[in-house]
């Protein structure tokens, strides 16, 4: 039945995946094994994304399934802890920009890929990024922005990290509609993610998850 569950997730059959989870739980299957099957499925979905078979909709759908299955399964494994997180990411849309969809998608994909994400919202001033980082100790700071005004906000935010003496302790990544490698260089960030999954993969690489 685990194989069936994995197949349902990988082939985007949401209802079936949820029914199978219920059946497994009724049959007293080990909840941790169910979650492992989900993780393996997510890896498979990730591979299909890399090879260009799957796109953002499948990543989102797989994430949705994983969320729902986790919600069903997690109450059964209370006390066993949540397991080690893959890394900590501080995420926000930079000053002046209030767009949240790109940020939310990245946050969601990071979450379902095992990262601890702290989303500090939109229109976040550089000082607020630094304050949050001091409290949260992220491995990676991820800045989102759709508008060209975000170029300077990103630069100012990286500068604020430098000024606070925190720049060397974190990796900084940027992403959004008009972002590019040139803007990563301009702002002093370490990289620009060309899309949400590219961002997740870069962060995985940096945090040694891959």
């Amino acid at each position, binding site marked *: 039945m685990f194989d069936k569950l994995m197949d349902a997730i990988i082939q985007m059959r949401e209802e079936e995946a949820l029914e199978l989870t219920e059946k497994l739980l009724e049959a007293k299957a080990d909840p941790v094994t169910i979650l492992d099957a989900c993780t393996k499925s997510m890896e498979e979905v990730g591979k299909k994304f890399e090879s260009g078979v799957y796109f953002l*909709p499948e990543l989102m759908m797989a994430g949705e399934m994983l969320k729902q299955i986790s919600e069903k399964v997690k109450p059964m494994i209370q006390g066993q802890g949540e397991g080690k997180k893959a890394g900590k990411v501080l995420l926000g849309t930079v000053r002046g*920009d*209030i767009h949240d969809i790109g940020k939310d998608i990245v946050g969601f994909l990071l979450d379902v890929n095992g990262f601890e994400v702290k989303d500090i919202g939109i229109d976040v001033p550089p000082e607020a990024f630094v304050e949050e980082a001091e409290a949260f100790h992220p491995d990676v700071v991820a800045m989102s922005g*759709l*508008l060209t*005004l975000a170029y300077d906000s990103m630069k100012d935010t990286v500068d604020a990290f430098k000024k606070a003496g925190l720049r060397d302790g974190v990796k900084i990544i940027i992403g959004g509609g*008009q972002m590019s490698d040139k*803007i990563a260089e*301009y702002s002093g960030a370490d990289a620009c993610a060309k899309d949400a999954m590219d961002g997740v993969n870069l962060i995985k690489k940096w945090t040694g998850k891959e």
Partner: protein
Amino acid sequence: MKERWTTFADDAAKKQEALFDTWLSPKITFESPEAEALYKERVTLYKDAIQMRVPKRVPVAPSAGSFPIEFSGINWYEAMYDYKKLAYAWGKYHNDMDPDAFNAPRTIAPGKALETLGLTLYRWAGGGGLRNNQEYQFVEKEYMKADEYYDLIDDPTGFFINTYFPRIFRELEPLKKIPLLPPIHEIPMMPGGLIPFGMADVQEAFVKLADAGNEVHQWLAEVSKVTLSQMAKGRPGFSGGITKAPFDVIGDSLRGTRGVLMDMFRHPEELMEACERITPFMIKFGVATCKAAGHIMPFIPMHKGADAFMSQDQFKKFYWPTLKKLIIGLSNEGVVPQLFVEGAYNKRLELVDELPRGKVVWWFDATDMGEAKKTVGRTNCIAGNVPLDILCTGTPDDVKTCCKNLIDVAGKDGGFMMVSGAGVQGSKPENVKTMIDFSKEYGVYR
């Protein structure tokens, strides 16, 4: 049911020619015979590019976006609330930079009208809750729920009146009470149909609409003045009217990105049916707004069909069928859809390369222009795509290198317009000026 908008009509070319004539000879008074000649010369540059002839030179006009606001030293609050300042900013930008075409400030909506209606779909400077120097921004949410597809499909107009507007305009909440209209067609239904219009809150909503409408007329007076004065100086509009791809109507403003991506799995039939149902509206709206502007190219900003948002199969199934109908529907009325592809279409180029010659303008943001030239660019005009990162952070030399390359590659043998990849707000003024001046000089066909 009969399938419509599946083939290009035989008389479409004739209709296109008639619209070009209207655009070429507007009923206005030019500043001078030279200005009139310049106007006609510029329209001809665009016409030749669209009809795939080699123009005298590459026409150039960055997408002004909101750049004129910062360039003229006013702020966003002033631009949205003081229409004279708005018109001044647009006049100054076009006079100083001298692009071949005019980008009207129609996207800078009057703040007070939005405020009167309590719009929540966007936030903006002033009454919209943003700081005075912040540009307006979209607030994406599920304004239509997944289980409401059939409300939309059964009666799109009714859905917008009864459900969508009350959700995005705080002050139009009472429109929920407006009855379904098609049943009101005989005397027994009439008293009942009129009851809501006698209710105080519904009447108040109509008063708000009237107030907002009056405000828009004040704004329009200034916008029209600057538009006409630019035309009188010899500068035609870059586009006229607007419409959208049906999938984006659903994905951008009704279901939201996340909602529409999930619907591809959870409600695929409803999603496709809704796109079909919206299509005639988008065709009629595009034709009407374009003709009202005396233009030929309605602006069509396209979002969720980009490479990063969906697979090729999903694009073929969900996005392209109704976009193609929109293109055919517009073309058959003589209109030339200005398809502004935000993001990239590198994977779509071959698929969408099935349109007859001289029907559309493909305006690209981040698509590879060399590949575009080899595919869609063989039959239709391509436009683009000086990137914003260069315009905002590069040097004039970077801009020249970029424009030279575009003219050499995308501009080869005509069929090309020089445009920026997106609105140029945030750009260095010297870079915008360089883009225009250099393209005029280097873009001459010899």
